[in-house]
Each structure stands twice: as C-alpha cells, then as structure tokens.
C-alpha cells in the first residue's frame, strides 16, 4: 500500500467503513427477520456473539503485519476521524456502556462525576500532551520518558506504572466480557471469560496496533448504533421527541421531580401508600435490631427461644376452630427458614436491620450532594464531605484520562501533529455522543419506572419487569411488601446494569435489538481490553526487552517476543479475572489514580518545563505512585485495614480518589528533584524544542522507525 497517498487512503477507508456499516445494518435486519420467523432468542444471542467476534477476527487477520512500525503504531497513517473512532472504542469500556446509565439512575447528580471526569480529561490530553507526543513519535509512553529524562530508570518506572495501571484496568474489562457472554448465551462466567479472551486475541495477535485500530473503528460503529437506537425509541415513546438529550430535560425530568415530591408527601395518595411500605421496612429493621441484641446477650439460648416461638405459633394456628391454611403454610415456612446456627442468624438479622435503607424517602434526581444527618450541622458536614469527594473523584478521573498509556499511545498513530490535534477533537466528540446520552437515558428510565411501573398491579406487571425479575434478582427485585396488590416504588429494587440491558424491552422493541445491545456491550469491553493488553505487551517487549535488555534484537525477534508476551499477559489477566476479585468500580478508579499520579506530572513537566531532569522524574514518579498506592493500602478494606479504614482517611477522601494525594506528590517530587540537580544537557533541551514545534528547520529526528 506504500504507493497509495494519504488522501486516497482516507477516502478508501471512508468507503470501506460505509460499506461495513451498511452491511452491519443489513445483518441486524436479517436477524430481525429470523426472529419474526420464530427462531428462539437464545439462538439469536449466539448469532450476534459469534458473528461479531468473527467479524473482528476477519479484520484482525486482514491487518496482519510483520512491520515494526505497523505493529506498534499502525504505520502512523491513521486519519484523524478514524483515530477518533478508535479512541472512542478504546476509551469506552463495558462499565461506560452498560453501567454508566445505571449509576446515574441510582445516584442522580452525584454519579455525574464519572460523566465529567471521563470526558473533561480530553481537554488536558488535547492541550497538554497529544500534539507533543505525536511530534516526539516513537512507540510507547515509556519511550518518551526514557528519551526526555535520560537513563534507564525513568523508563523503567514508566514501564512499571504502565503495567500496573493497565493490568488493573484490563481485569475490569475482561470481567465485563465474561458477564456479557454468560448473560446472553447462558455459558458459565469462567467459560465466558475465556471465549471473550479469544475474541480479544484474534483482534490484536497478528497485527498489533494496526489490527487493533481497524477493529476498534468497527467496534465503535457497532457500540454507538447499539446504544442510540433503544434510547431514541424510548424517547419517542415517552415524549414524542426523537432527541433524548432534549426531551429528557424539557419533558421527562419535570415529571420525575413532581413524582418524587408526591412519593415523599405522606398526605398524597401515592405518598400514603409509599409510607405504608416504608413503615413495614422500619418495623422489620427494628425487629432485626432487637433480635441481634438478644443474640448478642443470650447467644444460642435466644436462638432456641425464638425458634420455639415460631413453632408454638404453628401449633396455635392449627388448634384454631377454623384453621387458616394459608397462615399455617406461611408459619411453617418461617420455621423451616429459621437460621440454623448463630452465625447464620446474625447474617440474616443484620440483613433485616439493613432494610431500614429502603424506608428512606426518595432522593431527588437532580439534587446535588443530597445527604442525611440528624442536625443541620451534621448535614452541613456530610455535604461538604460529599462535595469534596465529588470534585476529588472528577480530578483523579480527568488527570487519569490524560495519563493512561493506552489512550496516549493512540496519538502516535496519526500522520502529523496537525492530525493529532484534530483527532483529539474527533475522539472526544465520539465519546461525547454516548456520554451525553447516558444521563438522558437515566432520566427516561426513571420516568418509566415512576409513572408506569409504580401504581401498576402485581397481577399484570409490564413484560420487561417480570422477565428480568425471573432472570436475575440482583437486577430486578420486586415484591408486594404491603400486600395491596399495587406496585409501590419502595417495593422495587433495581440493579444499575438493568437500565441499559432492559431499555429495548421497555421501549417495546423486538429481541433483535436486545441482541444488538449485547453486541455493543461486548464491542465496548473487547476494544478497551485490546488496547490495554497491547499496551502491557508493548511496554514489556519494546521498552523492557528491546530498549533495556537486548537493543540488537532483530525485527522478527522483537515481534515474536511481543506476540508471545501478549498471549501470556492475556492468559494471566483472564485467570485473575476468573477468580472474581473485588469491586469493579474500585479497580477502575485505582487504575486512574495510579496513572494520574505516576505519569501525568512527569509527562507535563517533560514538555512544559525545560529544567525538569532525570532526578526530578525519578523522584516525582516514584513519590506519586508510592503515595497513591500507600493511601489505597491504608484506606481500602480489601487490604485489611478493617475498622481503621475510615479513620485512616486524610481529609475524608475516599480510597478511589487516592490520586488526590499522589498527583501533588508527583509534582513536588519532580520540582524538588530537578532543582537540586544539574539542568539537563543541550541535547535534551533540543529535544524539548523539537516536541514543542510541529516543524523546525534543522530539526533532530526522533521517529525511530
């Protein structure tokens, strides 16, 4: 393809991907026809799963390469528009695609920290990093650290940081892949993980960055189509307006707000019914608390006495003149379900105590930092804590965005500095399409639940509610608590992931669209996992092996090592994921905080401060990473801080925002380290000028291809 000019190349790409999009739409219509002909849903799910994975494999196979420049940076000829789409797919993970709207549904305003953090970070990428990294060229982010600060140590710390944050993040992605595959095909979670892994590897194994780029563009198209169709449909259904981003705020949100007020007003008919359910929860919670206290005091004796009470009740019911069969059955069931030992009883009663949460009033969707508290002072204190954590999380996510190596690496692949700048714009634009739809979807879904589900009768629940409550109780749990036969809001518990997964059904679309949504979620998870795995494998093969261990290695050998490592890393990641470690949201947050603390200060100072030098970079990066990791260690329960976790917090900052301390530590480290040692030599100062100007006469060359 060497003879093809860049503009011809771009127009060819536009043609290919237009055909591709048309072909994909035709495929979806075809599956839709199959559905109408009566093919079962499970088969349709399989068709979507395997057809899309085969498609990615096809693109991956066509992009196979033995050229180092193509393998590491896609030959540096990815046009801005396409690099933007690839960035979008690389960026938007399973958590964004499936979880985001649900998080916003559940936490209202406070969930917007993720929306802001994951978009606003691109301003930093665009202004502080992308054009300069593109001018520098070369292959990886540690490459830049190694060249700018000299010596092996900054590069080595960069490699460690890249591996730690990408690996943490990739586990969250593979987890998402496993979840989607198992949900839509009925395979076991562990099997789903390895099926997904195969999907990830076919994209990247043969063609490295080149293959990943072109599959990511294809994946972006699928994921954005899959996200938009159901939301637009839902918006038309509820408001008659096909633009959800407008209708949600002008039409749905005022109604949601009015309903929230009604639910919380005990004098209104709806509020009175809600109150009757809440009263039951409060009673149950009080009973649970009392039983826990009894167990604490009398131990097993109390347990036996409680069980005796229930058995007596059964006997009493049976002895009545006209025995009530239903009441006897219920009483016998409660005897049968009675906790077997003290540990089980403690667990069950603690859960009962916890239902108090369901007796709380409905939180207003648009209210910022809604917190509880007994006195005005306490509320004020909790509010300032919530506000502080909201802003700290935004900061960590934004700076993390501007420091995650798998994203920054994308800007090496554009043909010029000019294109790199434009490509950040396209990247954020494509990400923005999904992120400004998610809050609208959350509001529309809430409107559906508040206005249609609440008040409907248990005898005729909407189809999507009965479907999902039988499929997965953690996603949709509904029970007639006050036995009035009518659904109250307090009787419904929704899991966040439900919102996106159930939207097609809520909107009344056929199952084929649900399959499309699953394919979109899979595309989101696979594309992110691909970018991350490649980053890890490249950091090891290029920076560690080629640059530090064997600089004379041949091209063939370098690529062989890289591919081998890719396989090993992917298997490790899949193995760790199949153990289901910890909380996904925390893993993601940790990756961002670590990247922000480790990379951001060194990268920015490397471009904007000529005086920054070797010692500064070493001190800054290790201080940033060290403080960040230490803070997580002393405050996150997983590491065993137990009862001290909260007491250990500095200024009440949650462990997910550990970067709040890591980032300043990184900057202080780099400033002190640089000022106490000599200024960098002329060669490095020239390098800084080189990255600052897109084109200079008599410029040095750092492309390294």
């Amino acid at each position: 393809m060497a003879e093809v000019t860049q503009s011809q190349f771009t127009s060819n790409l536009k043609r290919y991907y237009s055909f591709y999009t048309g072909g994909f739409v035709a495929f979806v219509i075809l599956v839709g026809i199959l559905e109408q002909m009566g093919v079962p849903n499970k088969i349709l799910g399989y068709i979507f799963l395997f057809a899309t994975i085969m498609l990615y494999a096809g693109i991956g196979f066509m992009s196979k390469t033995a050229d180092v420049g193509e393998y590491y940076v896609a030959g540096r000829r990815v046009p801005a528009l396409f690099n933007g789409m690839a960035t979008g797919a690389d960026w938007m993970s399973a958590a964004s695609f499936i979880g985001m709207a649900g998080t916003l549904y559940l936490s209202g305003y406070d969930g917007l920290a993720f929306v802001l953090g994951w978009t606003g970070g691109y301003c930093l990428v665009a202004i502080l990093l992308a054009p300069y990294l593109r001018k520098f060229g070369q292959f990886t982010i540690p490459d830049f650290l190694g060249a700018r600060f000299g010596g092996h140590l900054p590069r080595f710390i960069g490699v460690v940081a890249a591996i730690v944050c990408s690996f943490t993040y990739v586990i969250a992605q593979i987890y998402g892949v496993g979840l989607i595959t198992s949900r839509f095909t009925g395979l076991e979670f562990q099997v789903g993980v390895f099926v997904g892994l195969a999907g990830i590897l076919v994209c990247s194994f043969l063609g490295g960055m080149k293959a990943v780029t072109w599959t990511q563009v294809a994946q972006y198209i699928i994921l954005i189509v899959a996200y938009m169709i159901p939301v637009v449909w839902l918006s038309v259904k509820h408001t008659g307006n096909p633009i959800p981003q407008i209708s949600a705020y002008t039409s749905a949100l005022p109604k949601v707000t009015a309903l929230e007020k009604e639910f919380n007003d005990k004098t209104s008919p709806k509020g009175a019914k809600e109150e009757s359910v809440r009263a039951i929860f409060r009673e149950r919670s009080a009973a649970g608390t009392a039983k826990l206290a009894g167990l604490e005091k009398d131990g097993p004796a109390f347990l036996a006495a409680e069980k005796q009470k229930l058995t007596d009740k059964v006997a009493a019911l049976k002895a009545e003149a006209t025995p009530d069969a239903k009441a006897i059955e219920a009483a016998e069931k409660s005897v049968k379900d009675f906790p077997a030992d003290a540990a089980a009883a403690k667990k069950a009663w603690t859960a009962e105590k916890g239902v108090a949460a369901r007796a709380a009033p409905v939180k207003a969707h648009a209210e910022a930092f809604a917190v509880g508290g007994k006195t005005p002072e306490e509320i004020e204190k909790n509010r300032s804590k919530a506000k502080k954590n909201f802003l700290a999380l935004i900061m960590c996510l934004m700076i993390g965005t501007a420091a995650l190596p798998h994203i920054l690496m994308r800007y090496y692949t554009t043909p010029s500095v000019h294109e790199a700048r434009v490509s950040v714009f396209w990247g954020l634009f494509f990400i923005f399409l999904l992120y400004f739809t998610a809050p609208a979807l959350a509001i529309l879904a809430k409107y559906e639940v508040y206005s249609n589900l609440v008040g409907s009768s248990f005898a005729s629940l909407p189809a999507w509610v009965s479907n999902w409550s039988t499929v997965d109780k953690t996603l949709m749990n509904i029970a007639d608590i006050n036995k009035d036969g009518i659904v109250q809001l307090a009787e419904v518990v929704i899991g966040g992931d439900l919102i996106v997964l159930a939207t097609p059904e809520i909107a009344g679309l056929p199952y084929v669209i649900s399959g499309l949504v699953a394919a979109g979620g899979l595309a989101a998870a696979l594309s992110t996992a691909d970018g991350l795995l490649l980053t890890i494998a490249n950091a090891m093969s290029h920076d560690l092996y080629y640059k530090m261990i064997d600089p004379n290695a041949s091209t063939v050998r370098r690529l062989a090592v890289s591919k081998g490592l890719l396989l090993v890393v992917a298997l490790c990641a899949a193995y760790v994921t199949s153990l289901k470690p910890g909380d996904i949201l925390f893993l993601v947050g940790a990756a961002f905080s670590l990247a922000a603390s480790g990379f951001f200060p060194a990268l920015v100072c490397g471009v904007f401060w000529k005086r920054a030098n070797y010692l500064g970079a070493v001190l800054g990066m290790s201080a940033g990473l060290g403080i960040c990791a230490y803070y997580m260690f002393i405050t996150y329960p997983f590491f065993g801080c137990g009862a001290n976790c909260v007491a250990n917090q500095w200024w009440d900052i949650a462990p997910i925002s550990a970067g709040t301390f890591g980032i300043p530590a990184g900057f202080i480290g780099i400033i002190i380290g640089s000022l106490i040692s000599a200024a960098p030599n002329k060669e490095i100062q020239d390098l800084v000028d080189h990255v600052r100007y897109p084109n200079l006469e008599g410029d040095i060359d750092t492309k390294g291809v």
Partner: protein
Amino acid sequence: MQLTEKHKKYWNINLKISSALLVLWFVSTFVMGWYARELNAIEIIGPLGFYMSAQGSLIIYVAIIAYYAYFMNNLDKEYGVHEGELD
C-alpha cells in the same frame, strides 16, 4: 538548532491560549461543580447545576478542543512551523 524570536513568540502565544482554555475548563468543571446546589435554583432546561454537569460542561469541553485544534493549526502556518504535505 537555533530558535528565532518568531519561534519564541509562537510558543508564548501557545502558552497563552492553552492557559486561557484551561481556565475555561477549570471553571466549567470545578467551579460549576462546587456551586451545583446554588445553580440548581436557576431553572433553564431543568435545574441549571444538574444540566451543566450532565450536558452543558461536556459541550464546552468539545468546543474547547475544537477551538484549540483550529487555532493552533492556523498558528502553525502563520509562524511557518507547520508540517509539509504528507505525500
């Protein structure tokens, strides 16, 4: 490699536009976030604080990046540091 006065001026303009846009970025993120409750009292397209964080600030981010790319790509040409044709 010798930098001329013109080069230095280019870099200074770059620093100025970068700082100006970053100030805008900071205000639309952190200042808006800090005063979200107060802004929610104003009703334009829903409560303003909520609207800004859900959509308004995002639009500002896209505009910031678009303007930066447009401005810098022109500045490159004006100061003769733009890249040649690629092919």
